[in-house]
């Protein structure tokens, strides 16, 4: 009887000890994760980017509401309604790349040979830091453009329209795309200039053959 009691006491204590060990380990992990500067930094970067992205979305929503209002007022002001449609069209043309565009930005010339994945990463980095329109070796980068098969040779000249200071700083910051390429392929010989006015050509944009716009029936 006494032996049985001791067995139960031992079992209960061991169980409690097991729970405490796991509890302690979980708390330690959670503290370490929360205190890890890298983890905190990642979430902080995500918060900063989401804040900017949401600000852009709110602006876009306000523009769309304005457009919707102008269309609703068409009987009173036809010109305003047409202007609204054309204003949206202009933004779409910048995005589609089927018209030449102008604006401030940066010009980056890389004199070394770089690989296709590195060119893809460079274009991606420019888009990531807010470039609104890009050309590479004087060919407009559109949604149908690909560096695969583009037969590019150095020097590679990237022209990107956007905030010149932001683009320039982001490209050359420590850990930025240029830094990453240099880390894997050695020092890059490049020239980066901020420009008050760039002029980018229209891209070669083909009409769709396979993709059909879904009709909206409201």
């Amino acid at each position, binding site marked *: 009887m006494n032996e049985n009691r001791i067995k139960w006491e031992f079992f209960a204590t061991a169980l409690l000890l097991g729970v405490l060990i796991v509890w302690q380990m979980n708390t330690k992990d959670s503290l370490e994760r929360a205190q890890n500067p890298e983890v905190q930094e990642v979430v902080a970067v995500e918060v900063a980017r989401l804040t900017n992205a949401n600000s852009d979305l709110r602006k876009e929503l306000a523009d769309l509401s304005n457009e919707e209002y102008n269309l609703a007022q068409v009987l009173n002001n036809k010109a305003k309604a047409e202007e609204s449609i054309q204003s949206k069209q202009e933004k779409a043309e910048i995005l589609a790349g089927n018209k030449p565009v102008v604006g401030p930005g940066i010009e980056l010339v890389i004199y070394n040979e770089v690989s296709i994945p590195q060119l893809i990463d460079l274009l991606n980095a420019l888009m990531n830091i807010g470039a609104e329109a890009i050309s590479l070796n004087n060919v407009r980068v559109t949604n149908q453009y690909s560096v695969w098969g583009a037969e590019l040779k150095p020097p590679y000249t990237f022209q990107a329209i956007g905030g010149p200071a932001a683009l320039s700083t982001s490209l050359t910051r420590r850990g930025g795309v240029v830094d990453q390429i240099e880390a894997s392929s050695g020092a890059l010989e490049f020239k980066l200039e901020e420009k008050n006015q760039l002029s980018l050509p229209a891209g070669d944009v083909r009409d769709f053959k396979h993709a059909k716009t879904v009709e*909206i029936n409201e």
Partner: protein
Amino acid sequence: MKKISVDLLDVKIRPAKVLLVLVSIGGGILVSSQWRTRIVRVVNPIQPYTSLTVTRDALTEEQSRLKSEIDSITKSIASRTKDLGIANQVDKAIVQESSAVLELAGLTDVQGEGVKIILDDSTSYLLQEQSIAHAADIRDIVSLLKRAGAEAISINGERVVTTTAVDCIVNTILVNETRISNPFEISAIGDKDLLHRVLVDKAILQDLHKRVSSDGVVYQVTKENDILIKAHSGGLPGVNAKVSI
């Protein structure tokens, strides 16, 4: 006298009791350690992290709501514009030209034949650099799809447009500044046979194909007869860039 001595000996030599005492001491140490962890901190180190994650989640929710509102109002405008053109209340040529450009820019829902690609971390190998799916893999696939003539592409429902970046912050992948998680589903509308052929060609995307066979990265390509790809619902350019006349 003799009886007392036997009892003491009896207590000392019972291994279960000794173990019980040791376990209790261990438990006591853990309890006090846990207790101390909780109360001695003057500043709670978890608070800034928790606050950041709560803010991130709230912003993600807001982003999703804003995108949904943009999608809804965009459809309403498209429908209204089309009706105005039909009724000649605005210049029909303006409406037609605008619709064509919106389609090319990725601002309309589109449908057609194409391919679907599933890309994911290995399920059978230890997760390490070679056995997980990277943002760079997605970028390479998207670039190859464009080269093969894909007309519309989406990544986990996010439409790829000219300004789309596929970025990575440690283990978080962002497309159009929207967080996506694996498995990654890339849809593309175009010539399904051509798209499929280049995607499975092991002479192209060599690094990815190598990691599929040696490290278990999941990469499946299927032809599809009818894919729906939603319109881009993010912000539009036009702050610095202007169409040149």
